[in-house]
């Protein structure tokens, strides 16, 4: 029933931090639910007074209190306000104040790299979220390291036996982070005779790529990799360049203009970058301020466009810079 290591991580890192009634429902579903749905579990959604939902590759499934699949929202188990609060307390080890910065960014990272998105009532001070006052919904996105998922793609991304600067694009949930993690692992370890090993630096602002616990990666990102965990991307890229002498910098979900400038600086400093961004295609992201300046210089060697057309991890196309330039010339 799915990857035993991944199920083990759910049992070890996710189930113990769920409020007991939610834990019972999920645990029961994991052992009695359909094999395809359990193996394709992507997210668990706890919304106060609304049905408990398991997001899977075969669709969203509502669960009742005994973990059975139900079709009518009226029959589904609806977590109470206490269930949501208790889950939040368990996720933070009864120490919400130690995760204030993450709470302000509306997410938490659990051991094992599983990411929890938060929704509720925000308290705003100036233009900044000061606190999340009432958390009413938790979306637990389950991290899944798919070791080897980038191996088939690697030959199209290599330039002179080193991974070329690459931008990976897709809408949310298409597997960008998983692909980036495996590419970082391959770049770090090398894949003779195609790819030489490089010093890799990961700027992991949201602790999703390497899933660090106390600074130590919990997922395989290669032996030759350093990780700046929880560090803002623009700042992290500059620090990486100054302090850690990387040959490849990897970062996820680029979105701010300063991120774009930092990436350009890194490429101009002779370092290759491997980054991802939300967007359906190049035209889509070219309209975003973070990429306007960046794409004018076209610093990437390769562009990878992904989708969920055949499930998460579908690579639609890989475009080389030369191809893009010739298309622009026409």
């Amino acid at each position, binding site marked *: 029933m799915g990857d035993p290591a991944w199920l083990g991580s759910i049992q070890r890192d996710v189930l113990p931090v769920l*409020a007991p009634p939610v834990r019972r429902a999920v645990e029961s579903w994991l052992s009695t639910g359909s094999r395809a749905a359990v193996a394709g579990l992507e997210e668990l959604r706890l919304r106060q007074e609304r049905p408990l939902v398991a997001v899977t590759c075969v669709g969203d499934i509502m669960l009742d209190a005994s973990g059975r699949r139900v079709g009518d929202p009226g029959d589904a188990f609806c977590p109470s306000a206490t269930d949501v*609060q208790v889950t939040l307390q368990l996720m933070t*080890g*009864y*120490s919400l104040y*130690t995760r204030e910065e993450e709470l302000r960014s509306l997410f938490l990272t659990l051991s094992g790299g599983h990411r929890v998105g938060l929704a509720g009532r925000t308290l705003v001070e100036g233009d900044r979220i000061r606190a999340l*006052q009432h958390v009413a919904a938790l979306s637990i996105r389950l991290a899944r390291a798919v070791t080897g998922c980038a191996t088939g793609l690697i030959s199209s991304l290599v330039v002179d036996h080193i991974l070329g600067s690459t931008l990976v694009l897709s809408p949310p949930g298409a597997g960008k982070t998983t692909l980036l993690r495996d590419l970082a692992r391959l770049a770090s370890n090398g894949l003779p005779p195609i790819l030489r090993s490089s010093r890799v630096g990961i700027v992991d602002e949201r602790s999703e790529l390497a899933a660090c616990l106390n600074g130590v990666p919990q997922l395989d990102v290669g032996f030759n990799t350093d990780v700046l965990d929880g560090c803002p991307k623009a700042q992290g890229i500059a620090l990486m360049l100054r302090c850690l002498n990387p040959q490849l910098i990897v970062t996820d979900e680029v979105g701010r203009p300063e991120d774009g400038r930092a990436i350009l600086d890194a490429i101009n400093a002779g370092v290759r970058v491997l980054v991802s961004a939300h967007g359906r295609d190049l035209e889509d992201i070219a309209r975003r301020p973070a990429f306007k300046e960046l794409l004018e210089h076209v610093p990437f060697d390769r562009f990878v466009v992904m989708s969920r057309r055949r499930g998460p991890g579908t690579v639609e196309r890989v475009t080389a810079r030369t191809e893009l330039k010739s298309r622009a010339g026409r």
Partner: protein
Amino acid sequence: MLLLKLAGAVLVVGAGAALGHAVSQRYRQRPRELQQFQRALELLVTEISYAVSPLPHALGRAGVGTTYPVREVFSGAASRLASGGLVTAGDGWTAALDAATPALSLNAADLEIIRSLGAVFSMPGAREQVRHLELACRRLAQHESAARADESRYARLALQLGVLGALALTIVLL
């Protein structure tokens, strides 16, 4: 017969003295325990706001400078939280306080302040928690001043009343 009466008198006076001593001790212990709670809460504020230690660790550290039975509250809450399986941080605190209450010399109003900290530990922000902990410290300090006044007024009186009351009872019985 006389010997029996004498033995009974000694027993009554001894019991009265012991009762007086016990009441007197409660008057003496109360300000000391209130002071220890304040010191521990001050340390807890530092652990939360500067060290940003997880609550189980912070509670354990805060209780280090205290003695039995105050230490039992902090170490008991820390171990309950560290072992997990609780519903909220407040549950761990309340359970530890309930377990230590028979050994504490605090009155109901003192215990209410300390019990209310359980809700503070479930607050999301360090700023809010620190504000409530500091407020609890100030309230405990007020209770401590009153407890010191009670100690100087009633501690010796309770001891003397115990002995003298027992003596009066002995005379009446004899």
